[in-house]
């Protein structure tokens, strides 16, 4: 076999040099990690979900650790689309990786407005539509669990932009295949899953939540990986567009499991906090695996579950 294996892939109209990206909300606006990882080596960078107006987010005491997981209620704290475009976007002119912007709204109109604004930004390569945040009172998961809202948002965002669209799905539905299929029918170029699961942790001395007044949060990290794998396999078998796997990936082996059940790409979240260089280590580990198994192209690995 000559040279390194080919890790590139296409999602809609964009070509990623490899299938490794940070999960939205675990990588800030990218620049925060520049001292810890080579941003140019990533398949794409997905930034923290942006909303139309800035959001204060949840009350203080937003996170706690649980068994092999991280429970957090951030509540989509962010600086809003206008400051994002003015203050954060210019930095990406210096970064040689694709940029995917995660968008969140409290109404269908807000998603449309966000998509219109971002459609005008050349540096933005794709949008990830977050209809699955477990920690906001309006929008978020409420849209992702409602087929009518999902259909409406994806259709109307598709109408206003030609950029690659990825729909980030919530696991908190009876049949996730319905939402994946709807996303595809309405023009999505890919789906990503899973967002965090709602969860709680209680301080038995005070009988209060370990997240204070926030009460509950989104459970992420290695604890959710088996569930994520299960859902990725279901979705892969029901749609034709690429599936991006997310959920507790902490090693090349974890990522390869996701490819085998049908993910075309993966996002790494919590483990960026544990090891800021993990994404590079996963890219290298996937290459090693492919070479030792004589796999030349990533596509030969995807969906090989037997």
């Amino acid at each position, binding site marked *: 076999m000559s040279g390194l294996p080919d890790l590139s892939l296409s999602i809609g109209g964009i070509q990623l040099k490899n299938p490794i990206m940070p999960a939205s*909300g*675990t*990588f*800030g606006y990218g620049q*925060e*990690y520049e001292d*810890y990882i080579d941003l140019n080596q990533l398949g794409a960078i997905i930034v*923290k979900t942006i909303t139309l*107006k*800035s959001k*204060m*987010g949840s*009350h*203080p*005491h*937003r*996170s*706690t*650790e649980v*068994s*092999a*997981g*991280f429970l*957090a209620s*951030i509540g989509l*704290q962010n*600086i809003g689309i206008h400051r994002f475009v003015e203050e954060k976007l210019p930095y990406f002119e210096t970064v040689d990786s694709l940029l995917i912007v995660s968008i969140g709204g409290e109404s269908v109109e807000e998603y449309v407005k966000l998509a219109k604004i971002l459609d005008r930004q050349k540096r933005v390569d794709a949008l990830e539509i977050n209809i699955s945040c477990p920690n906001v009172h309006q929008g978020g998961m409420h849209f992702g669990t409602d087929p009518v809202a999902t259909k409406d948002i994806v259709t109307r965002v598709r109408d206003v932009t030609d950029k690659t669209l990825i729909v980030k799905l919530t696991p908190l539905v009876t049949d996730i295949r319905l939402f994946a299929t709807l996303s595809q029918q309405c023009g999505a170029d890919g789906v990503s899953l899973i967002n965090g699961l709602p969860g709680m942790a209680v301080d038995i001395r005070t009988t209060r939540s370990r997240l*204070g*007044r926030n009460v509950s949060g989104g459970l992420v*990290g*290695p604890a959710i990986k088996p569930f994520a794998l299960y859902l990725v396999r279901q979705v892969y078998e029901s749609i034709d567009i690429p599936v991006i796997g997310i959920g507790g990936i*902490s090693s090349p082996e974890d990522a390869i499991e996701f490819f085998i059940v049908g993910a075309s790409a993966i996002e790494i979240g*919590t483990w*960026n*906090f*544990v*090891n*800021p260089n993990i994404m590079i280590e996963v890219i290298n580990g996937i290459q090693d695996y492919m070479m030792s198994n004589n796999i030349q192209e990533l596509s030969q690995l995807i969906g090989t579950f037997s």
Partner: protein
Amino acid sequence: MEYQVIENINISLTYYKLALRIPSNAKLPLPGQFYTVRCGETKEPLLRRPFSMHRLDKKGEAVHLEILYRVVGKGTDWLSRRKIGEKVDAIGPLGNGFLFQEDVPNVILVARGIGLAPLYGVAESVHMRNQEAGIFILMGAQTDERLFYEKECSKIGRAFFYTDDGSKGFQGNGPQLLRHLMASEQLPQRLYMYACGPSHMLRDLANISEKFDLPGQVALEEHMGCGLGVCLSCVCPLRADSIRREQHWKKPSLHWSADGSRVYSLICKDGPVYDIREVEWDEWLA
């Protein structure tokens, strides 16, 4: 980055002191700054744990970072079992350190339990800058048995101890002891306070600070996801009026509400040290 363990000893009960050799190409920390340390090799515990710098120990060319910690769970238990020569994975120094007031002749440090960890380095720094500076240390715990570093405290300054049950020193808490010392004129007039300990204690000290015009700084503790300013877990509510009035520290992560009435700061980036009067204590403790 990998740091070599130079020393890891049990001080008393569950309190330990860890010394790590700082690689020659690494930045040196300031009192109040912290490191996040990977406390295990598996997925539980999962996240890095933040530890403040206790003090720096300069041994010729080598500089050792000392961390004081209390074993409270699986992560710190794992850390307590690291042996000399082993490596631990630490990221830092992170956050902002304490600011030193050049024109203040006397400092008072108020600590409870492991809150002493970052304050001891403050005492050393103050002493190094001004050997004439008066250093007063109020150190306490639940009981005499749970007190530690009494000798060290007495060596670096004038130490007063307090315990909840009165088994050593003043019976009561740190803020009560501070009020007592002020009322009985055992402290000089021009004082600057540095404090670290439970949030309720810091809030009570903030009230004293307001009432008696005693300025100071606090180091806050909070659960952190990343320590790098991306997960946005460790927000601290600050007083919008005080932030507009004076800003001592560079605070790159301030996040304002649309109407400008509320402001959140990230403890890992803008803190963990804050002016005692800029924290919105009621919201922090709610």
